[in-house]
């Protein structure tokens, strides 16, 4: 019986592997056509024969393309189902070959979805399966099915709401026909049904795998949603049916949501870029409706998930997974940077928002001898630096408690150190040094003296990183640095309402001028004057929008409404607080801060040193980074906040 089960499992794994690999061999056995070798002089074969040879055929004829750094494999999602896995074109651009590989959004959904569900199936199951639960509890069956249908419907609605984005990505789909949405709903339902079933059977162990969201981001190629977020949306809906949500807080959120939806009367498009999967592509009524619902359900789902799985939480398992992911991220990032084909498959099979970096040497310095940030596998160097920083901190905490490291920590620790160095996130480097020293010293006899020395040395190190000469600049210069940048990026006579407001504040002096001055000084030392200055030049809210915001994940209005002078790239606000100002307004930020302060002071006796460190670590990084605009960071940081502020830390961080 047991051997039969193993045999069945083996067959299942082989079938899944074949499903994942075979599409790239599409048309391999067509003897009539042989893929041509590309050269600087001639790529005509691929111009004449689009979608005729498979990717594997191309690789057989162009073996160098696997490892030489002037080959770039790129997806072309707007292709027929029949073109999937075939070369749809080759272009020569600045001595680099851009190989366009045909993919199709429907196949992407099935193939990538199958891959991620397959990977989830490796997680250890709960003691009781959802099948057994459904026998005992028929009300579960009804709630489960309704939640599943509503989750699938919501994601299908997102395609309707962001039609402008999808029209460029889904090949020959009639967006006015009912059949198209029925097909999309069916495929999404099929995937979510399997995802939710696999997740429910493993729900108590899923919590340890949150760090894996940095590795498997799970955003579908050609789509603007993340696969794994569906689990939390499902839990969000399910918790409403179970009447296990906090209506006091949610009422406030619903009032805000109604305002955001009613207010979105304009239409501004936003190219999601590296935020794809976790940002709205258009500021319009339907899109705002979707993102408000999504945010509401995501937050409630996360809370439901954390609350139900924290009781028997084993912190060591989470630390181990932090280390494992650090190793995988660095290895895959390095390989992807040096092998174009791997970079291509990393993007596809791990559901990345942006192709991994193609700078093969992570130790590289620029001409001014400054370290170049190397993001490797992930789409943001700063965010991945934070992840490595947390991995280091947790390993050191583990060492302080146990006085030794397990195999995961021994292997993962050097990788995390290297990863942090490569990412060049200096704020995280300082925080990790200070916190680690604090943890290591806190058990020593000479704790006070050593801590004093460490903090003094860290202060000196911060001054060194900022630059000694900058410390001596006058306050007047520093307080106006951000304002000067905002003025520099102001286009002609187009002045944003936010800049206008700052202008008035400066002229009138008083508390507003002082507040903005402090913000400007911090921006200068954090090297954010330019980016926050551009934000000020762009941000053009009405008074009510400044107070209430324009809705979660909505950058469309910010980037579409007000013209500014040309910038290096899109340049995100580089501060989650500024993003939150756009999303939730001053009132929203104030309410969030009040909620966190209330929870912190109410439970401060239950929050231990590590808990405080993690909260501070996250807060500092929220201030200077867009970190909450990435799904993986949003989920991981929400988990830490929810767990630290609501549950006894001694038990939570027990090793």
């Amino acid at each position, binding site marked *: 019986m047991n051997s039969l089960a193993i045999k069945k499992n083996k067959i299942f794994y082989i079938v899944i592997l074949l499903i994942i690999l075979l599409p790239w061999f599409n048309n391999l056995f067509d003897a009539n056509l042989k893929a041509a070798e590309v050269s600087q002089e001639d790529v005509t074969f691929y111009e004449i024969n689009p979608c005729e040879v498979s990717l594997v055929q191309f690789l057989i004829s162009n073996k160098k393309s696997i490892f030489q750094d002037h080959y770039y494999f790129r997806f072309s999602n707007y292709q*027929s*189902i*029949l073109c999937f896995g075939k070369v749809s074109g080759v272009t020569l651009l600045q001595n680099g070959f851009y190989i366009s590989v045909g993919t199709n959004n*429907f196949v992407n959904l099935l193939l990538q979805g199958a891959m991620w569900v397959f990977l989830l199936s490796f997680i250890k199951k709960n003691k009781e399966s959802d*099948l*057994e639960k*459904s*026998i005992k509890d028929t009300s579960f069956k009804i709630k489960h099915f309704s939640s599943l249908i509503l989750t699938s419907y919501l994601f299908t609605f997102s395609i309707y709401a962001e039609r402008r984005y999808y029209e460029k990505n889904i*090949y*020959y*789909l009639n967006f006015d026909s009912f*059949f*198209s949405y*029925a*097909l999309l709903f*069916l*495929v999404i*339902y*099929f995937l979510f*049904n*399997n995802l939710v079933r696999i997740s429910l059977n493993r729900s108590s162990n899923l919590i340890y795998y949150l760090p894996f969201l940095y590795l498997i981001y799970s955003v579908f190629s050609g789509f603007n949603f993340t696969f794994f977020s569906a689990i939390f949306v499902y839990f969000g809906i399910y918790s409403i049916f179970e009447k296990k949500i906090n209506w006091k807080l949610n009422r406030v959120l619903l009032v805000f949501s109604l305002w955001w939806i009613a207010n979105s009367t304009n239409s501004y498009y936003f190219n999601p870029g590296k935020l794809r999967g976790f940002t709205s592509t258009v500021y319009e009524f339907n899109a705002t409706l979707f993102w408000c619902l999504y945010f509401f359900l995501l937050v409630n789902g996360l809370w439901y998930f954390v609350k139900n799985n924290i009781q028997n939480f084993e912190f060591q398992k989470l630390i181990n997974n932090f280390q494992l992911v650090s190793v995988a991220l660095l290895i895959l990032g390095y390989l992807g940077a040096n092998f174009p084909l791997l970079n291509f498959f990393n993007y596809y099979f791990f559901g990345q928002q942006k192709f991994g970096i193609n700078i093969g040497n992570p130790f590289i310095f620029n001409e001014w001898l400054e370290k170049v940030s190397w993001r490797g596998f992930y789409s943001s160097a700063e965010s991945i630096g934070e992840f490595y920083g947390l991995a280091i901190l947790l390993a050191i905490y583990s060492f302080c408690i146990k006085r030794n490291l397990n195999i995961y920590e021994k292997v993962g620790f050097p990788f995390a150190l290297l990863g942090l160095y490569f990412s060049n996130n200096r704020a995280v480097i300082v925080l990790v040094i200070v916190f680690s020293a604090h943890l290591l010293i806190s058990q020593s006899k000479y704790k006070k003296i050593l801590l004093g020395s460490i903090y003094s040395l860290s202060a000196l190190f911060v001054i060194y990183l900022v630059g000694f000469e900058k410390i001596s600049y006058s306050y007047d210069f520093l307080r106006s640095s951000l304002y000067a940048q905002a003025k520099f990026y102001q286009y002609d006579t187009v002045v944003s309402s936010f800049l206008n407001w700052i202008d008035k504040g400066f002229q009138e002096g008083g508390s507003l001028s002082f507040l903005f001055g402090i913000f400007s000084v911090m921006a200068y030392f954090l090297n954010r004057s330019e980016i926050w200055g551009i934000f000020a030049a762009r941000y053009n809210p009405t008074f009510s929008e400044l107070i209430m915001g324009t809705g979660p994940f909505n950058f469309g209005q910010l980037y579409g409404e007000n013209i500014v002078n040309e910038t290096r790239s899109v340049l995100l606000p580089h501060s989650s607080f500024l993003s939150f100002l756009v999303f939730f307004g001053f009132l929203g930020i104030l309410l969030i801060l009040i909620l966190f302060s209330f929870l912190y002071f109410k439970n401060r006796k239950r929050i231990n040193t590590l808990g405080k460190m993690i909260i501070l670590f996250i807060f500092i990084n929220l201030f200077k980074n867009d970190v909450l605009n990435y799904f993986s960071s949003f989920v991981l940081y929400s988990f830490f906040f929810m767990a630290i502020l609501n549950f006894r830390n001694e038990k939570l961080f027990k090793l």
Partner: protein
Amino acid sequence: MSKIEDLCGEYPQSFIKQDISSDPNYVFVNDPSFSLRQLFDSEGNTVFVNSFIECEHYVAGGWGYSPIQNTEILLHQILFIGIAGLVISQYLVRKYKLINLK
């Protein structure tokens, strides 16, 4: 780009839309500067058009399909049936397991 422009080319500068459907005696005049185009309906039937006005009239009337588009629509239909089959069979297998467990 609209479907008409996609299949018929850009609108001529002097183009004036005429109410052809209400005139049963309307005769399309060949335009020598317009290259012959083949249009398809959803069932794969074909028609040749010789002027922009004729092309525009046919595309607006439902002859705006192409063989590639028809193939894709067929593939979407096959996909729909295939996925529906998978969903139903998964449901039946689960039901069978549930009965056995009971």
